[in-house]
């Protein structure tokens, strides 16, 4: 059994801190904006719920955070049920690159001669000069840093095998690089490496007697009274493979705790437009064919009073929250990798095409006009600002509508694209035609509010082709345009920016306990992974860190 996770000193808990008692020092140390804490009304009569089953700890979501949380709670003796709305475990992590920002001076780092420490990890990930580090809750960053070494050993102890540290640091890392997990052999869902994180943990979880209920969607978190008291359990509904509710519902009582690990809100336009109003429904969450990430946990927690944490992390414009995406399919995240035989291919409908060289395409908006240098890198937020700009839809002022990649037969040959299914989705996301004007007329898509004007597209392409002759893009300063778009047939592929992940969520303290709008802990409720706000670090390690803390903490609660 592991030791308890390391928690940062300050900001552990906002509970039992009447406002009058908050002196300036402890207020600042807490890092919390606790303003005017009202006296809690008396707990009303407990909600009358007919419980179908009972368990110590419920974990909502079987991704990186959820699996870790479940194992941690079980390890401390709790009985655990995981509910997952997909037909398989894995969540967002399954489709990820399987990389963790983990260091602190572990065995593998020492073997490479890398000097690292928790202090260095903390320093890197709370760097004020970088927007990515500027807005995080430093108590949570400190907790992550202080848990790195233990978590490394703990994950190894529960079946994770490491591949290697990446070649170069990215994001905020200076002293370490990202550590990739080893591939899981013969994974049928995806060639991505993320299965190397979730499959070993699934195996461990099942061996430990953790029950995983698939195609069960949480619909409500029960609390003693609407905004007061401890959480008591959840309601679920059985869903089909399109997440449509069936008739069977269930109430599961949680004696000790409920851990939200639902993967964030990138796939929920209503929720995500609270932070960036431009991200309307045409933008698809990467890998949403596998994991919807519709903010289910956030919404259920907010409905019983939870606050959101460090929301500025969502709009730093410093990480790739938005990506250019691959093209020719609806859910077009750049690293959306699957097989035609993947069990979720029926939702994806296509594999999509990756653009190796943006000299091979022009990108146009719904109006057939170019809008930016196509070679923009993934973190060029001016590109997204142009892509998300309004182009005249009188009924929709936010969002920028579809972006289409336009290219010709020569580009297909240079890129070695296969422009037929299963690589592309001709049902609204990929079109071909004999001429450019005809191509514009072919584009019929649920987010294209008017037919693309053919003359616009023809003029855009003719003008671009003249830039190839003149040697300079007079409109958007693309590096010297190299190839004309001239040889038939012509193609239009959906290339609308995709949403990578979410970087804010439910406010938690360093014990991963959920904090309400008055700064108080909602007893028994926890959040981790992309459902939790406060630490704008991308990926699995944040999920695992706070999932483990939540699991340990929940298991230690009185029944």
């Amino acid at each position: 059994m592991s030791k308890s996770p390391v928690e940062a000193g300050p900001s552990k808990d906002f509970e039992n801190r009447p406002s009058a008692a908050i002196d300036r020092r402890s207020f600042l140390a807490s890092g919390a904006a606790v303003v005017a804490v009202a006296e809690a009304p008396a707990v009303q009569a407990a909600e009358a719920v007919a419980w179908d089953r009972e368990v110590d700890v419920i974990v909502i979501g079987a991704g990186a955070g959820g699996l870790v949380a479940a194992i941690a709670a079980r390890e401390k003796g709790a009985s655990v049920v995981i509910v997952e709305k997909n037909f398989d475990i894995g969540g967002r992590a399954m489709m990820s690159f399987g990389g963790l920002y983990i260091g602190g001076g572990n065995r593998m780092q020492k073997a490479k001669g890398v000097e690292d420490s928790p202090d260095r990890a903390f320093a890197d990930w709370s760097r004020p000069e970088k927007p990515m580090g500027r807005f995080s809750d430093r108590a949570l960053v400190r907790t992550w840093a202080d848990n790195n070494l233990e978590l490394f050993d703990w994950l190894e102890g529960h079946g994770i095998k490491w591949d290697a540290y990446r070649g170069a640091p990215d994001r905020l890392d200076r002293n370490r690089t990202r550590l990739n997990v080893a591939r899981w052999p013969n994974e049928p869902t995806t060639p991505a490496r993320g299965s190397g994180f979730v499959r070993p943990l699934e195996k461990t979880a099942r061996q430990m007697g953790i029950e995983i209920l698939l195609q069960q969607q949480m619909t409500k978190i029960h609390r003693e009274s609407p905004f007061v008291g401890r959480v008591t359990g959840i309601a679920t509904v059985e869903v089909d493979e399109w997440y449509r509710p069936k008739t069977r519902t269930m109430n599961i009582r949680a004696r000790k705790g409920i851990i939200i690990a639902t993967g964030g809100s990138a796939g929920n336009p209503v929720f995500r437009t609270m932070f960036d109003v431009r991200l309307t429904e045409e933008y698809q969450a990467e890998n949403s064919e596998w994991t919807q990430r519709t903010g289910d946990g956030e919404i259920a927690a907010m409905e019983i009073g939870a606050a959101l944490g460090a929301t500025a992390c969502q709009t730093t414009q410093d990480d790739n929250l938005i990506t250019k995406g691959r093209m020719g399919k609806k859910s077009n995240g750049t690293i959306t990798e699957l097989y035609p035989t993947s069990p979720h291919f029926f939702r994806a409908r296509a594999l999509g095409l990756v653009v190796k060289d943006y000299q091979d395409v022009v990108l146009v908006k719904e109006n057939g006009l170019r809008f930016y240098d196509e070679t923009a890198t993934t973190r060029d937020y001016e590109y997204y600002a142009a892509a998300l700009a309004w182009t005249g839809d009188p009924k929709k002022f936010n969002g920028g509508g579809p972006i289409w990649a336009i290219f010709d037969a020569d580009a297909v040959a240079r890129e070695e694209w296969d422009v037929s299914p299963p690589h592309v989705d001709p049902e609204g996301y990929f079109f071909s035609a004999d001429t450019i004007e005809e191509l514009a007329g072919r584009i019929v898509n649920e987010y294209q509010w008017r037919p693309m004007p053919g003359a616009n597209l023809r003029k855009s392409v003719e003008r671009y082709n003249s830039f190839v002759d003149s040697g300079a893009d007079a409109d958007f300063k693309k590096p010297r345009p190299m190839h004309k778009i001239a040889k038939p047939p012509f193609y239009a592929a959906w290339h609308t920016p995709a949403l990578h992940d979410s970087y804010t969520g439910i406010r938690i303290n360093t014990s991963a306990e959920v904090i309400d709008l008055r700064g108080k802990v909602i007893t028994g409720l926890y959040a981790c992974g992309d459902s939790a706000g406060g630490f704008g670090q991308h990926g699995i390690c944040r999920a695992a860190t706070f999932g483990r803390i939540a699991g340990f903490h929940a298991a230690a609660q009185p029944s």
Partner: protein
Amino acid sequence: MSEDHPAAGLAVLSLKLAEPVPAQVPVGAEIMLKVRVSGAACDLSGGRIEVAGEEIVARAELVAFRDNFNETAAFTVTAPVRVGGFTWTIRFPPQDIGGVSYRECALPVSSRATPHHTSLAVWSVPSPVRVEGGFSITVGAKSSGACALGGAKIEVRNDTGAPAGQGILGDTPWPGTGALYWTDVALASPSREGLQRWSVAFAATDLELPHLSSSAEFSFTAVKPPEHGVTVKVTENRVATPVADVQVALGPYRAATDKAGSAYIVVPAGTYDLAVWKSGFGAASKIVEITADLSVQLELLRLPEELTAWD
């Protein structure tokens, strides 16, 4: 009159289309119709329906009896081949069905026949083109009705709008296209150097069905005959290893580097922008003055992984 339907023959039948005829339809297009007859409370299956313009253009039969109407199966009617407004009369002729006599009823429907659109593609335009010589381009034309355009004429005009050449479209569509009829057009090079914007026109006359004409622009650069060989060698900054498959542009001339990171271009003397491009590297350029054969070295800087990683 039958006893079962004492008033059937006197019932006022009325006609309706399941889907209205669009306000505009391309000439010669096939339009799907489905006619409903209401007013009879019994099955009229086998009843005849006619669609007539100046003469009868389609016949159909009632095949389905629903709660309160009889319906034909969907059937096609071909739109007129002449542009302009037209009216069809959908008729239920006087007829006996199941021993009952029914009176005639009719429904006029109007629409407008519009010409097909055409659009053009211009490709295989060499660039640069040597002044005072000749060159050829390929032009294709497409009818929005996918009509055969073989035998139709393509005209090319230069940047002053003067005719520069013409071609006749062939009878076989360009490979990989549905109905892009194409031809090569031989052209005389301009006498003046520099960027040229020429146009292609398709005059849609003498086609079986009415079509709208169309035009498109194409561009190329006209240059003096080349005289000096320029070797461009591209290496990666710092590590100095050659970089293959780099796109190299020397003024209007383009090439790609080989495995040794080298590209060879023959150009006339002059001052040029040399630009190189490879995905994953920063773009690089320099100005070079060419008065003799020359070798030029250019370094590419690899972009940090943070800018190229998508995960």
